[in-house]
């Protein structure tokens, strides 16, 4: 079966036609093994057509910080500049039933008739780290259709480290007076995000306190990995200010990356994607069988990353060969 006969229209996707996008997302989210070949083929095609000026922005932060409201503002900002926007939001799933209430869409203010905006909600399922099992698959689609891609994480706190391995730029949103949520950054569990936003900054005194706390953190210097100096933004959705400054800070970071390590970074993200898929399927035992995490990363760094699912397939086959070797 090829893409066309499966009803997947690449041209439609590249033109951000909403019916085409929706159909392709349904395929990419499908977990039946029978659909995997088709998904791999689609991802490869999409990778070839990724929009060169795209920017993948991760929005994270504790519940109630106003992530969705901030996304509404950014969407408006980008749309009025004529950029196409794709939004992926992730909500946690109930461990007991596997069900989920996907509530972010309700909090994002959007025009349903807008042809250049697409919002998809995903449930995290059993996947930890703040994203869903198939967020990366869907991202590869959005990278070929949209100029600005916003990913909102589940917002459950300290375990949300995965967004760093997906987004070009990570925005961390706090609301005034939520000092506790900064602990894990202070403790070094998470790298300091590229942009920090104190939302609801209309609450002056509390906002100032959070601002100073963050300043102390951000002012600690350049990020170790890329030398970027984290930006600190005050914003108020209620009074309608701060989002322009945020959009500007995001553009600055994109420029900074573009003149440096952007391609390496994105390649690295894909390597990590394959590694996580591998772990998800074969577990730590499978990792050991291939010689450990470091060994797998070394192999993947040499592999062709235009088709991550094929790279995964190759790892899987090797794993199978090893397990069939006598004496193993």
């Amino acid at each position, binding site marked *: 079966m090829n893409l066309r006969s499966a009803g997947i229209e690449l041209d439609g996707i590249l033109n951000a036609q909403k019916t085409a996008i929706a159909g392709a997302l349904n395929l990419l989210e*499908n977990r039946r093994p029978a659909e995997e070949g088709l998904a791999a083929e689609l991802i490869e095609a999409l990778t070839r057509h990724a929009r060169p000026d795209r920017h993948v922005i991760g929005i994270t932060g504790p519940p109630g910080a106003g992530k969705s409201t901030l996304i509404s503002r950014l969407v408006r900002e980008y749309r009025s500049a004529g950029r196409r926007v794709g939004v992926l939001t992730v909500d946690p799933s109930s461990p*007991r039933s596997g*069900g*989920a209430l*996907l509530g972010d869409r*309700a909090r994002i203010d959007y025009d*349903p008739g807008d042809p250049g905006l697409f919002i998809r909600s995903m449930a995290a399922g059993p996947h930890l780290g703040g994203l869903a099992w198939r967020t990366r698959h869907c991202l590869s689609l959005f990278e070929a259709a949209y100029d600005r891609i916003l990913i909102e994480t589940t917002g459950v706190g300290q375990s949300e480290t995965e967004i760093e391995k997906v987004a070009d730029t990570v925005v961390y949103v706090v609301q005034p007076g939520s000092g506790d949520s900064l602990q894990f950054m202070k403790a070094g569990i998470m790298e300091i995000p590229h942009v920090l936003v104190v939302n609801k900054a209309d609450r002056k005194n509390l906002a100032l306190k959070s601002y100073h706390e963050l300043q102390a953190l951000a002012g600690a210097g350049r990020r170790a990995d890329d030398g970027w100096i984290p930006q600190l933004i005050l914003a108020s959705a209620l009074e309608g200010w701060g989002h322009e400054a945020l959009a500007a800070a995001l553009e600055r970071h994109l420029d900074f990356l573009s003149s440096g390590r952007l391609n390496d970074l994105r390649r690295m993200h894909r390597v990590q994607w394959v590694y996580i898929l591998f772990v998800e399927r074969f577990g730590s035992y499978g990792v050991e069988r291939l010689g450990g995490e470091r060994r797998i990363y070394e192999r993947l760094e040499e592999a062709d990353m235009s088709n991550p699912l094929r790279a995964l397939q190759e790892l899987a086959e090797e794993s199978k060969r090893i397990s069939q070797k006598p004496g193993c």
Partner: protein
Amino acid sequence: MKEIEPPAKDPPWLMRTYSGYASAAESNRLYRANLAKGQTGLSIAFDLPTQTGYDSDHILARGEVGKLGVPMRTREDMEALFDQIPVERMNTSMTINAPTAWVLALYLSLARQQGADLSQLRGTTQNDILKEYLSRGTYIFPPKASIRLAGEVIRYAFHHLPKWNPINICSYHLQESGAEPVQEVAFTLANAVCVLDAVRAAGDIPAQDFPQVVGRMAFFLNAGIRFIEEMCKVRVFSRMWDRICRERYGVSDPGLRRFRYGVQVNSLGLTERQPENNIARIIYEFLGVVLSKSARARSVQLPAWNEALGLPRKWDQQWSLRIQQILAHETDLLEYEDIFEGSAVIGRKEKLLEDAAQAELERILEMGGAVEALENGYLKRCLVESNARRIREIETGRRVVVGVNRFEEGEPSPLTAGLDASFLTVDDAVENEQIAILRAFRSRRDAGRVAGALDHLHRTLSSGGELMAASIACAEAGVTTGEWSDALRSVYGEYRAPTGVGGVAASDGAGEDMRAVIQRVRQVSDRLGRNLKLLIGKPGLDGHSNGAEQIAVKARDAGMEVVYEGIRLTPEQIAESALQEGVHVVGLSILSGSHLKLVPEVIRGLEERGLKTLPVVLGGIIPESDLTKMPQASIKRVFAPRDYHLNRIMHEIVDVVAAANGIDLSAVTP
């Protein structure tokens, strides 16, 4: 034998019937008929477009004009509504909230025209916005702006309408949304405190006059079937309100601390099955709010026995009025002092309620007050949780509902024979007629005067001047409800309230049947390759979201992925979300009776997006005869409010999705 002097009696409460429909002229005829039968006040129902600040020809008004109340757009509508009814001699209660200042302005411009002395006007504007965000759904503006608007009406009434109740804080709708007595008391009092604090903080009423403002606060309560507890609740309300007035606002005059309240007894508990039993429910509920003299309601509205089935007729309303008249005039109730004075049993029950309500009230105040607890979703989450508990109790039989989950066998009721035909239905032609009347008015009025009045309104809004005066000038100039509301929208913005479903804890004691549902959801999800994804949509202006919320929470607990965007969506929005989210089934909830217009529009939207085969299920009061008028191929199931077995609904949704995708689940049918 010498005739015995009849004993002295207390005067009875005000007897009202909440009514209004179709048009101002039609409603006027109804009001005059009710007044002639001995009704002593008017209680006006406005249609949903009016309540949400839209003119009858706005896109969101489609299907709703004149359905649940009278369309009120202009001063001419107000004149027609009160034709031959002198407002100076009326006690008029108006169920209006977000656009209260506007509707009151229309009423005052009529009063002036009738030559009435404004200082003599009696009546009530509901003007209670917080419960709109929590349960009734007819809000427009964000909470802080809304509280400011409510305060404007209160301040205007203080200066010009000394006998008017400018606000009626409602616990009624909180109970309908699931509030238990403790929550009802605490949330309502937190709401009252929030409004009064805001008026006081505005600072333009002299401190020595503030007790007068406190004294005009009125409340609107619900009375449920557990009528002893309900009576205790009312007495606790009185006591806690008295304390708040004394301690928080320094009111020394006991007369100004009285807990003045009106009641509509519970409609939620009225059943569709064996509806004649509802008469008994209405009477017992009514007792809860009149038995105790010290906490007796000042006005009472009783629902009609057949409210769960459709819009009551005049005769149905008359029956409910007679119940009140018999208690007031035939029985000896009004001859006694408070008959519970000194009862230790009642005292203990009250203590329990009061302690818990006080603790809950303090918790909300510590959070920063009612607006904060609203915005952070706390209040709504509590209500959705309580309501889920209530439905679960009915489902499991722990809470008995006679004729529904106990003693279900019954004789066919002669009252319901041919009922479909005996309902009052609003003719669909009404909408077009009303639009024509509105457009004729617009073309007739002095456009320059309208523009001038709106301009003045804009300037008043931005300068913080006298909103009521500017609104009365608008009313007299011929401004419409939609125009006035748009002016405010442009300054304050609009608001979407938290849906409350996100943070609700999973239901307790899932039980065998629930496990079976979860298993079937998993099976169908595995076959689909994605988790079963359900979109719940509420099209139109209907804000009664309890059913949609309960289905959303239940579907989550059954293992589905649920997209629910809250109330007041256009059909286009729903169809677009269905596409973008890749859902397997769409559930539409419509309780306002506008399904004939809205459902086909949603389905057309789905078809336009290549989703012709996507199954749709409906929830609401949808007569059999209407189903044939809708696109039947897409509509796979219809659920009514009587379908309290939520597990069964979940099974049916699984069936619908399986069938639509050619999946055979026969091996695991429950």
